């Protein structure tokens, strides 16, 4: 794998990968960096590069998250220290902090599918490979997650903001 492809991956997908890893661990940058380095030392570049990368990031983030929870299992306020996941959008839209909180409140499988599809750009077939489920299941989780988010955020249309419930 050449440095040009690696640089392109970093530029185009690093932010989404970090967001994807942030669901499970507190040091997502380290996880993404290790995943990219693992890709570099792979004897052959995987055919399905993006699903492979997301799967590696997912596994590493889950492992890192478990280790973090073991380290600070007595710290109840760990979730409150989680940073905001999104920058403030230029256009008037959802509040980044509220969106982060709503996403964090979702069941893990729904959140994972939404993040991978909306910000990672993966298809449901690719998400199914990453999450180890069928594409129909992934789509079902996606719809359920969006519905839950709509209820939590109290919006039905981005141009028609309403107050959260």
């Amino acid at each position, binding site marked *: 794998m050449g440095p040009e492809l690696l640089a392109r991956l*970093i530029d185009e997908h*690093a932010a989404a990968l970090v967001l994807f890893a942030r669901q499970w661990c507190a040091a997502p940058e380290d996880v993404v960096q290790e995943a990219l380095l693992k890709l570099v030392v792979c004897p052959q570049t995987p055919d399905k590069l993006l699903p492979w990368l997301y799967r590696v990031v997912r596994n590493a983030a889950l492992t890192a998250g478990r280790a973090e929870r073991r380290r600070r299992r007595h710290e109840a306020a760990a979730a409150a220290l989680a940073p905001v*996941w999104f920058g403030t*959008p230029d256009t008037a839209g959802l509040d980044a902090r509220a969106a982060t909180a709503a996403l964090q409140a979702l069941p893990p499988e729904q959140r994972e599918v939404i993040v991978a599809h909306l910000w990672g750009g993966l298809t449901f077939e690719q998400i199914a490979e990453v999450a180890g489920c069928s594409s129909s299941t992934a789509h079902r989780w*996606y*719809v359920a997650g*969006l519905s839950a988010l709509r209820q939590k955020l109290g919006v*039905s249309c*981005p141009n028609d903001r309403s107050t959260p419930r």
Partner: protein
Amino acid sequence: MSERPLDPALTDLERALGALAPVPAALDRDRLLFEAGRRAARRRGWYWPGATAALALLAAGLGTALVLRAGPPPVERMVSIPAAQPTPSPDPEEDPPFASRPNYFRLREQLLTRGLEALPVSPPAPPAGPPVTLENLLREPELATPAPRHPGL
């Protein structure tokens, strides 16, 4: 955004969520590229170190085997050697070779103790020829050599 049909309300929410940009990754791009190159080089460099280590192990094993190799088992054989017979020391007076050949040291000792009389008696001289006279001496060349060209001299 979704490849499958969604409820319009969900589609709007989907668009709104998609407009949120993830926080930029706090990755040091240059450091990551450098580390990637380092690891790639390390991966490619395993062949020669591995071969060197294998050959070193082989050489060490062969050397150890050479040092610790046991020799052939000893063979015990009974060899009978006849006892050597003591040989009597030869008598110097009766040793024929020693007595027959002239002994310089013995002759010297006898000469030193007894003088010239110790010399062995020489064999008798052959019978004497005609007495040596001047005439005989002058005549002999004439018998042995041809006659001179100038008899007058």
